[in-house]
């Protein structure tokens, strides 16, 4: 019985943390949908956003800092689209991928120049007393973070499916030449997507920053997003959500039940184990877009 409650607690913790993995993965999905490119800079964008936010908070207070950071991320997005991706329209995806690598270095470098290399704490002032739900402990900050992540995800899904720009974006994802022949403005939609990816990066940076602190290792959460993308399917928003939850739960359960047997450290490999299984049996992921082939 104790094991059961322990398992439930672990599962809930896993789901809550998983929702934050989903959040990070969403940034990748956005860019991938729009330009079929794995945006290597997403982790750096998350770091840059979080650092900018914690750097600004002591100067102007939380809310103004948040607004300013949204502005800064918008600026980064417009810069990235204008200076890097617009000249590369029609280039090989691999070329664009390398360009995102360059953008990652630019962002990490300028983050160091502006905000230094010191780690920072980020206090969002969330209540800390754990929730008790039917005899199960739930961490309050995790719960609130998960709510925030869920809110964001719902907004994004609505954006994709209920707005004109969302439709344009999905059209571009399928065939950008055909999309242009419909009068869909590639540049405008791309800029919007980069801005969105920047805002998602900020949200992820905030949630993770509040949990583990803001420091340079943060850009490595991109590595956590990778298995999430493999499991969910790299162009699928529902995929990113479900896969993020799966990874979170797998990590928590793995660490809780298998960890003690082998001396811990299971958490870090669980995501990759699950991803490996998917690569073997369902390589396009849970909700990834199968190549549609008519026979």
């Amino acid at each position, binding site marked *: 019985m104790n094991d059961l409650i322990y398992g439930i607690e672990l599962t809930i913790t896993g789901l809550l943390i998983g929702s934050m993995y989903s959040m990070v993965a969403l940034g990748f999905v956005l860019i991938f949908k729009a330009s079929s490119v794995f945006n290597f800079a997403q982790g750096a964008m998350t770091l840059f956003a979080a650092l900018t936010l914690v750097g600004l908070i002591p100067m102007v207070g939380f809310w103004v800092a948040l607004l300013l950071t949204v502005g800064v991320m918008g600026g980064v997005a417009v810069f990235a689209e204008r200076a890097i991706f617009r000249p590369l329209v*029609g280039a090989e995806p691999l070329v664009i991928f390398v360009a995102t690598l360059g953008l990652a270095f630019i962002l990490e470098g300028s983050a160091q120049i502006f905000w230094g290399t010191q780690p920072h704490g980020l206090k969002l002032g969330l209540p800390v007393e754990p929730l008790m739900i039917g005899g199960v402990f739930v961490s309050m900050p995790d719960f609130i973070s998960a709510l925030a992540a869920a809110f964001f995800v719902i907004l994004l899904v609505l954006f994709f499916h209920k707005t004109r720009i969302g*439709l*344009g974006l*999905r059209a571009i994802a399928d065939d950008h030449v*055909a999309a242009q*022949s419909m*009068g869909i403005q590639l540049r405008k939609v791309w800029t919007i997507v980069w801005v969105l990816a920047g805002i998602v990066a900020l949200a992820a940076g905030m949630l993770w920053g509040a949990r583990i602190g803001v420091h340079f290792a943060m850009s490595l959460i991109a590595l956590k997003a990778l298995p999430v993308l493999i499991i969910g399917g790299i162009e699928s928003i529902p995929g990113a959500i479900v896969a993020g939850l799966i990874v979170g739960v797998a990590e928590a359960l793995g660490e809780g039940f298998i960890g003690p047997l082998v001396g811990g450290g299971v958490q870090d490999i669980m995501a990759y184990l699950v991803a490996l299984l998917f690569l073997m049996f369902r390589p396009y992921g849970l909700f990834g877009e199968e190549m*549609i082939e*008519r026979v």
Partner: protein
Amino acid sequence: MAPVLRIEDVEVYYGGVIHVLKGVSLAVPEKGIVALLGANGAGKSTTLKAVSNLLRAERGEVARGTIEFLGRSVLKLDPADIVRLGIVQVLEGRRLFEHLTVEENLRAGAYAQTWGETVKSDLERVYEYFPALAERRELKAGYLSGGEQQMAAIGRAMMGRPKLILLDEPSMGLAPLLVKEIFQIVHRLNRDEDVAILLAEQNALMALSIVQYAYVMEGGRVVSEGRADALARDDTVRRFYLGMADHEEHQSYRKILEEKRAAAGMRNLRKRQSAGGSDDS
């Protein structure tokens, strides 16, 4: 009638080096329907893409010449602006958004329109033209049959309320009966919706049956043009395009023309000679 589209002496290069169009001139009259005939690689698609300015996505560029739509140059315009002016291209190979539903595809076609009631009535109009699509509106477009995909592609173009549709190879990969059906719809579209159509097509016989005027392209040039009925009767066109070339299949159209001219020249020469001869006597 004043042309809705006028192309003059257009030259196109791909990647700055490959000379694809070598001086193409043509015109589409207002509400007219004109065919651009020619074999694979003759430059038909490139001509259409030069108008819609989708060349850039393929690293192509108009190096010389003028392209005017309703008297206004569209050479430097963004593809999206060209759509807003009223030119919509139906790309070769349909190019539907496979993972979007049929209806989402059609809605995407109205992207450049202000969204609202007009989109709804336009959708109904498209479904009227293509009842098969109405039944499949919630299906992902990738699962449509080839003929339905072509219908959806044309319907999607209609959603943009164009004044001119650039229709690239609608017969591609379709059974003859379906081709006939599609061409009849295109004909009806031109007649009933007041939309001009520039049709690039390899299936010359089909195309000539619905257009008023046609241009024949080869090697990046227009090598012949004329009214559809005249071209359909023209021996050289028939010989080269309607599969009547028999053992001379590999001859180029221009070569045939040159031969014909040479033969005519010889005849004239002989005539003159015999006329001169008769003078002498």
